[in-house]
């Protein structure tokens, strides 16, 4: 699985596979969590839909492109890790972090614009569900950013140890997962509203 000297035994490999499987299970629970939020959004959307709420298509598209690109760079980071290049891994993490952070600031600015317009989450059930669904995704992105930072520090310090490799793998799964959730948000929240 990895081209590093740190994998030694069959036991290690089995343990790593267990961790990855466990993380898949966690991602399943997160899928159910988002599914519940999507259901909530679908129910409340039929409620009081404020006429003033118009999403800007180019803005959301840019957000999407940035997030998808960050997913691509996280994939490259994993490839760099497998070829054993510590510098490229850190560079990949930094790039992914920057893209993710840009995505998050765009989302924040959209939120603050809506709130300034008087369309905050306290306005209606529909806006509550919109802010919560998109915001929960944003919160996950924030977790991913903290994780990427900690990973970059750990890898810069200790190198591509077995446990760092494993964490990188999990982080990458997490990041791709957030991408998939975003595709659903893009479609269900934004495309349907346009």
């Amino acid at each position, binding site marked *: 699985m990895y081209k590093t000297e740190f994998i030694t035994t069959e036991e290690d490999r089995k343990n790593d596979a267990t961790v990855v499987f466990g993380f898949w*299970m966690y991602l*399943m629970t997160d899928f159910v969590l988002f599914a*519940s939020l999507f259901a*909530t959004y679908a129910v409340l959307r039929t409620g009081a839909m404020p006429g003033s709420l118009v999403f800007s298509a180019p803005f959301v598209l840019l957000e999407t492109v940035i997030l998808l690109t960050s997913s691509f760079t996280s994939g490259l980071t994993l490839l760099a890790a497998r070829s054993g290049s510590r510098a490229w891994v850190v560079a990949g993490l930094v790039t992914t972090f920057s893209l993710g952070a840009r995505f998050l600031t765009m989302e924040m600015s959209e939120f603050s614009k809506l709130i300034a317009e008087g369309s905050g989450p306290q306005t209606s059930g529909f806006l509550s569900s919109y802010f919560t669904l998109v915001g929960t995704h944003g919160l996950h992105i924030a977790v991913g950013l*903290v994780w990427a930072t900690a990973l970059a520090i*750990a890898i810069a310090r200790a190198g591509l140890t077995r446990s760092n490799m494993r*964490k990188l793998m999990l982080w990458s799964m997490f990041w791709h997962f957030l991408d998939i959730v975003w595709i659903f948000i893009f479609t269900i929240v934004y495309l349907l509203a346009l």
Partner: protein
Amino acid sequence: MIWQHIIFGQLSLAALPQNPIAWGGAVVFVGGLVVSLLAITYFKFWGTLWREWFTSLDPKRIGIMYLIVSLVMLARGGSDALLMRLQQATSVGASSGVLSSEHFQQIFSAHGSIMIFFVAMGLMFGLINIVLPLQIGARDVAFPFLNSLSFWLFVAGAALVNCSLILGDFSTAGWLSYPPLSELAYSPTVGVDYWIWSLQISGIGSLLSGINFFVTIIRNRCKGMTPMRMPMFTWTVAGSMSLVIFAFPILTVTLALLALDRSLGFHFFTAGAGGNMMMYVNLIWAWGHPEVYILVLPAFGIFSEVVPVFSGKKLAGYTSMVLSVLAIVFFSFLVWLHHFFTMGAGANVNAFFGIMTMVIGIPTGVKMFNWIFTMYKGRIRFMTPMLWFMGFVVLFTLGGVAGVVLAEPAADYQLHNSLFLVAHFHTMIVSGVLFGFFAGLTYWLPKVLGFKLDESFGRKAFWCWLIGFILAFGPLYILGFMGATRRLDHYSAALGWQSLFIVAGIGAAIISLGFAFQIAQIVRSIRRRRANADTTGDPWDGRTLEWSVPSPAPAYNFAILPIVHSLDAFWHEKEKVRAEGKGFERVLINASDYEDIIMPKNTGAGILIAVFVFALGFGIVWHIGWLVAVGFLGAVIAITLRAFAEDTEWTMTAHDVARAEAAAHKHHLTRHAA
């Protein structure tokens, strides 16, 4: 004033109890806590407690801690039940009973929440921790630290619930806190916030446990244990944990949305502004119904272990038992609407869910018949675990039939919200879940304690529970038909209900006597531990792998990982020896045949994270900004540091393993001789 608000949020002296009974509760709770702390200090037990228990990652020790917390919470939830029975037996006509309406509402809300989240869930995870790794021939769970974290989150949730005894009030909105009643407009005090955050914190712990044990079963089984060679308890836990994985995130979301409504003024479930309270009821039951099966499946698993062992026969219909577990897992997500037929979803929707509800009774019926077939022509030993089973068979069947009555939407329109419903679900949860876990305690505790529980007190406890239960809940079925609604704190004397309520009260008192016998049983068993010692490691002539190691089981469970070739592997191994006309004896292998064992190091990280999370929850409940910040940041930093901690394992050398095994063997021989 401003400073007071910044430091204490909404917390003030007015939060202390306001009436004698609430004071009583607070004094008993704080008094119990202070006495325990003083006792631990007096016996200089803090060091041992911290090093060998609080920081332990050994599932067997974590399991025992779960059981202790759950039994304490059972006492709390049971006292609530007694107060309710007392109120309903006395509050008739001119008399207003012992409790105010407000206090009565808090008590029934606390009773339900505590019994499900902190008693039933705790006993379940306790038993799973103790037995599951042993039963699948594993040394540990898949993620030992996560296990400790789950436990401490469970404790943090339990602590938060108990805070409401002393500071502020508890929710008056029932155990599931339906909006709009649970919204800020109608429940302006901290009660519902206590409910939300204690359940949220312990619920996240349960979710992590669900993942942990599911992965453990999938990945950590010993060689040769194919799915169809897994013991039934393992199968039911696999089913239950997969339900946890799919159902608990829904609870997390539902509680979070209600919290957003209450704390930040959102409008998910409010009566106005486009909120939809019916959505709450759907969401909470989409978790709540599977939750019932999360609890009862492991109890079914326990009976599936107990009945064959105490009948001296293999389990009848193993394959059909496995299939019925899978069917229950599947159907449990298709019945949630039967909790609110009267919401008015329409005849076709109600008919679908009514039929599904009757259908899910079929796999449960299959199990009933298989257990009874297992007993048929068996050499039955009527010991305590078997008694709990026999009580279960009768009561659970009756309760199940009442459930089928309720599954009929037309009948449900008459019976919903009545004491008939209360009697029905208590029959299912008490006789199904609790009796099952009590049987499990008697059956498995010798494995971790090294001695059997006192049989005589165990029997007395059982009979008190059984008779008390029939007296306490039989009248409720009748009262329900007579029109008595649930959550009733006062009624007219002309209705003629009082005598039945008094009988129910007597029943509750007899159940408390049963609980007292259980506590006495534990005390006496500890005092007579030498006489009741389990010298063989196999006190019941068991069939599964947990009985193949000495009692108490060593921290590493198995010095040599077992390889199994069949279902009931240990039984077949014993049978082979018995066929040669010899008695089965555990033998020591050559010292050179042992291997190094990698073990997780003890850590206080779980307890530390839980302390921060508790602070976070308490801060949100009382609007204490700085405490929320400290709790949140502390938890994030602690989790990150732990996630990147290296050096979390140590190696027990083959030499040490050999020594420990030899010592245990010698101990066993001397005790056996004595």
